[in-house]
């Protein structure tokens, strides 16, 4: 089809190629890095739906990432010790099945997003940013002061949850699960943004007054996008918990919200695979430069500055521009 599609496919194929290559070469650690890129990319794909397509600058997506993680951690730890999670109003037992945990993680995030979105969408601009941040920080402090699930120390679980027919401990098989979900989320985003709903969402971002004048209310459209966005990011949180077999309040912290936003901006706001490219570059830098200097994030900061100032389309936008130039030149 078009250049956009090709660039998106190449980015995804590169990620898979790195993981497969590392697997063949017997470098399990690199496979895990690629898995981390897929998971954080997925978190960014979630945020991109709200931020990129809907113009909703949420500085609180760590809330949903953390909710996904904690739901996973709580189910897994209860499965280990056999105590029910809830006895009232109904009995809810722990579980080790990813296929059972993911819907719970996404449902919990959807409910939280419905509440947070309904309140924060009454504001806009910088107030929206602050309200979403405030909600995420509230949950962060709640997690810290909740000794039942580890409080400040976080919650470890010793067995990675299971997926039918696969050995989730094998790095390449766990990568396959994460990459598969990433592909699904990308497909979902591609379809939704081109649907009637996507048309309306992007219209409300660009010109709310005009959208209203053709009979489209912005708030329900935005709230829907916000909830879908949160669900995708929560799924990433669940995968991240299983990757580390550990969750901690830092998943809820504003640093996390900032990182997810960095993936989106670095890769390209409103570009389908932008967050994947952004997360991959982030992890690459962290891996290559982290051991050299603790201040590697200064370089990241410079990159981000350069992108925001000179290439608002992000890495994907730059690539597309370069391709166009070679085609015409």
């Amino acid at each position, binding site marked *: 089809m078009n250049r956009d599609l090709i660039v998106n496919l190449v980015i995804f194929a590169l990620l898979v190629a790195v993981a497969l290559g590392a697997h063949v070469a017997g470098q399990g650690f690199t496979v895990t890095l690629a898995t981390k890129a897929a998971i954080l990319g997925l978190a960014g794909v979630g945020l991109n739906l709200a931020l990129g397509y809907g113009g909703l600058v949420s500085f609180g997506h760590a809330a949903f990432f953390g909710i996904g993680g904690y739901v996973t951690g709580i189910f897994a730890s209860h499965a280990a010790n056999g105590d029910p999670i809830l006895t009232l109003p109904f009995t809810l037992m722990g579980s080790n099945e990813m296929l059972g945990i993911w819907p719970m993680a996404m449902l919990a995030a959807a409910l939280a997003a419905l509440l947070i979105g309904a309140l924060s969408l009454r504001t806009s601009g910088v107030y929206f940013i602050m309200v979403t941040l405030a909600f995420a920080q509230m949950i962060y402090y709640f997690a810290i002061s909740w000794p039942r699930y580890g409080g400040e120390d976080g919650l470890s679980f010793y067995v990675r949850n299971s997926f039918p027919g696969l050995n989730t401990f094998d790095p390449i098989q766990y990568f396959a699960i994460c990459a598969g979900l990433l592909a699904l989320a990308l497909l979902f985003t591609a*379809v939704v943004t081109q649907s009637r709903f996507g048309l309306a969402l992007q219209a409300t971002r660009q010109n709310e007054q005009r959208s209203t004048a053709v009979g489209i209310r912005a708030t329900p459209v935005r709230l829907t996008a916000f909830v879908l966005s949160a669900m995708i990011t929560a799924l990433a949180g669940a995968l991240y918990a299983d990757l580390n077999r550990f969750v901690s309040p830092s998943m809820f912290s504003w640093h996390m919200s900032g990182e997810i936003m960095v993936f989106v901006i670095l890769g390209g706001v409103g570009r389908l695979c932008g967050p994947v490219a952004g997360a991959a570059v982030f992890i690459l830098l962290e891996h290559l430069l982290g051991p050299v200097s603790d201040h590697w994030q200064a370089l990241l900061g410079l990159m981000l500055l350069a992108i925001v100032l000179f290439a608002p389309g992000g890495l994907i936008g730059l690539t597309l521009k370069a391709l166009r130039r070679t085609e015409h030149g």
Partner: protein
Amino acid sequence: MADPILSIRGLKKSFGALTATDDVSLDLFPGEIHALIGPNGAGKSTLIKQIVGEIRPNEGTIRFEGQVIDRLDAAARARLGLARSFQVSSVIPDFTVLQNVMLAVAGADGHVFRFHRPALSDRTLTEPARFHIAHAGLSGREGTRASVLSHGERRKLEIAMALALRPRAFLLDEPMAGMGLEGAKQLTAILSDLRSEAPILLVEHDMDAVFALADRISVLVYGRIIATGSVAEIRANPEVRRSYLGEEA
């Protein structure tokens, strides 16, 4: 005379000590172009905003096709067929002409929460959109991004979007603003044609256009309608001449 499509009674709106709309009543009848004129600051835009539902009046009632619409928000009023154009052209800049009009079609039929079918291959959107684009005189520009359209083309796009709402009444806020002489002439012809679709409440500064198009004229001064009548009546009205047309009576 037939029942009015749009009927405004006793509308009042003040901002603090400033009375922007002072007991305004006016009707828009089927098939007519009713021009609303008045000096800058007379409250024309404030009146339009109250009709479309962007701001709430302090007092008064607005009926649209017999139904009281005071409690409806702007989106709901648009879906009833109250089609509006803006003083400064307002379109979705990164959308193509086709996507802009498709958006209006989708807004009008009320089915925005559909998530899987690609909008561009949805013929219930594209076919009406193409029809309205042709009607507004923009054929051949469907794939052009709205942000690169000329001023006149953007006006036509707004008209295509208004048509897509299956309008029962048009509210056009200074459509001639910023148009060249030739463009204004063209647009006058289009508006005259538009009257057969639905009646038009036309806010306009361009007196040539107003006198050429309007069946009736209302003159708004300091938030109050000082006269309503035919073109000839308004031209002859001494109070209008004094307060607006700028002549000594």
